[in-house]
């Protein structure tokens, strides 16, 4: 195999792996978007998931316990946000902003308190186990790209499938979608739009928690800036994917590709890596503009 194709395979392999946290978070965030709530706290919830997940995994030595802790912590955060927004009628955006701030603050303070450092906290945790048998790696192309992925990456795709099934095929999912389409009708038909919204926020907590945990596992550590904008990218992926699970997954891959490319391009100075990072935002903006309804100009 030529050197370029090796590099390409490496990039694609990294892409699929990097898409894992995005898939978790964006699919969770899809629920809140479908219920009519623009949830900008995915970033902060991911951070919380990363910290508490890694801490629990490090403490217990079990990856599953880590995952559970990540989910619980992020869901608690989502509940806080949800209660303030839905019960106390707070502004959703500001509550989201506050959540993001809170996440950064709490993780830094706890990191200092428990691990006596605000910088990298390394955990000696086993990496998520490989799930595909070794012999599959030899299959040309998809072998090295897909079958070398860990169980974590595979779970993220299973999660995506599960979310797609829930929103399309279950009563619960339909009610959440209906709340986003016509909350007044939902209320008039005897159901509570607020309950659906709270449920949607909890789902986004689950997704963000797992996404943050995945980030932590990928470097076996927790760093203050571990999320680094991926929560926003997940939100943007929901928009770019026009709220359809398949397209959202594709958008996650696109952004993961951008991330992979920018890592590789460090070596070559032709395309500035920073600009490559900006590309996904630009793509989303353009797609929003094109999809936007032309308002009657003037007034």
């Amino acid at each position, binding site marked *: 195999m030529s050197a370029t194709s090796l590099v390409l395979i490496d990039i694609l392999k990294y892409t699929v792996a990097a898409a894992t946290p995005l898939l978790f978070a964006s699919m969770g965030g899809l629920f809140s978007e479908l219920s009519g709530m623009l949830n900008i706290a995915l970033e902060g919830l991911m951070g919380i998931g990363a910290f508490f997940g890694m801490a629990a995994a490090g403490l217990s030595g079990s990856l599953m316990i880590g995952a559970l802790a990540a989910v619980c912590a992020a869901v608690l955060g989502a509940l806080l946000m949800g209660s303030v927004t839905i019960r106390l009628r707070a502004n959703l955006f500001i509550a989201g902003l506050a959540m993001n*701030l809170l996440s950064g603050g709490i993780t830094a303070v706890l990191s200092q308190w428990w691990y006596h450092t605000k910088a990298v906290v390394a955990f000696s945790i086993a990496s998520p186990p490989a799930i595909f048998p070794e012999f599959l790696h030899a299959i040309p192309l998809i072998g090295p790209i897909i079958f070398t992925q860990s169980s974590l990456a595979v779970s993220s795709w299973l999660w995506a499938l599960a979310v797609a099934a829930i929103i399309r095929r279950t009563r619960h999912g339909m009610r959440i979608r209906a709340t986003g389409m016509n909350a007044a009708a939902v209320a008039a038909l005897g159901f509570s739009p607020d309950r659906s919204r709270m449920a949607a926020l909890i789902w986004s907590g689950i997704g963000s928690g797992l996404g943050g945990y995945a980030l932590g596992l990928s470097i076996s550590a927790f760093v203050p800036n571990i999320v680094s904008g991926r929560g926003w990218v997940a939100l943007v992926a929901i928009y770019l994917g026009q709220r359809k699970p398949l397209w959202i997954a594709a958008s996650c891959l696109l952004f993961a590709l951008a991330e992979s490319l920018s890592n590789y391009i460090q070596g070559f100075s032709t395309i500035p890596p920073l*600009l490559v990072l900006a590309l996904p935002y630009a793509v989303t*903006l353009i797609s929003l503009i094109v999809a936007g309804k032309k308002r009657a100009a003037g007034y």
Partner: protein
Amino acid sequence: MSSESSLRSSTRLSLAVGVSLALTCAVLALFSADFWGALGQFFIAPFSNRYFFGNFLADAVPLAISGLGVLIAFRSKNFNLGGEGQLYSGALVAGILALRLGQATDPLELWIAASVAGALTGALIAALSGALKAYRGVSELISSFLISAIVVNVVDFFITGPLQDPASNFQTTRQLAAQFLLPKILVPSKLDISACVALALVAGAAVAAARTRIGFELKICGENEEFARYCGISVVRYDVGAMAFSGALYGLAGALLVIGPQARVMRGFSSGIGWSAISVALLAQGSELGVVPAALFVAFLGAGSNQVMIGSGIPSEIISILQAVALFFITAQALPRVRRRRKA
């Protein structure tokens, strides 16, 4: 203002301030070895000498200027989430201009040019979001955030690339010569005359809002869009204009930082100010004059946090927790002030 709603807003405000201060004490009690010492560091040290006090005031300046812009945008129900990018890019443009002009002009002209350049940069970027909302129905909240994310990366690229100071180990542009920096007020702190600019802007905005036609029309746009149209007010003009104004103030704040305490444009120097400005605007509860105490409060939380970090080793990130809690309280039932999402 009916007496009923202003009572509620002052209750919210005192709750927000009160709880965050109480929380501060709790955090200090939990994490510090010496509680009373830490308490002193947080609450008293910022005022203890000219250096600390001046720095604390200086931190409030960009918060006040940007917060004012966010407040005005809120007035017309526009949410500018792109402050980080607008401030950062305003700073860069101002910095580049100042470095270029360098020896050629006298300091005053340089300051004016840099300030105007910074403000224009921020205004154009924010106005883009306003226009996208007016003509394509794109939420200005999302577009301003996306544009800001792009802009931050672009500015980072320029700083670390073509504009990098070859003589420095940090990722930064070259430094401005000392004589071109804004004159300091409270030596040895970094406080400079930009504080006066901030106060002047706040006073001017307060007067304009209360007594000019533009302020009146902006108020109507924010209260009832249909009524505004009935009165013949171009809501589109005010949407774009309010965003542009808020972007201009962000850009100006960035410019003043560069020709002031920073003296150069270091990568990430302004990270977080954009978000804090939103907190400031909310704490100001719709009043321009309120921006000053709000900025001072947020800057105080930051100064106190820094002091306890130095003094007791508590991470300065507690300010994030404090700000978050204050925001939660302020926004609960903040219905009349800020737009709620249409479908909620």
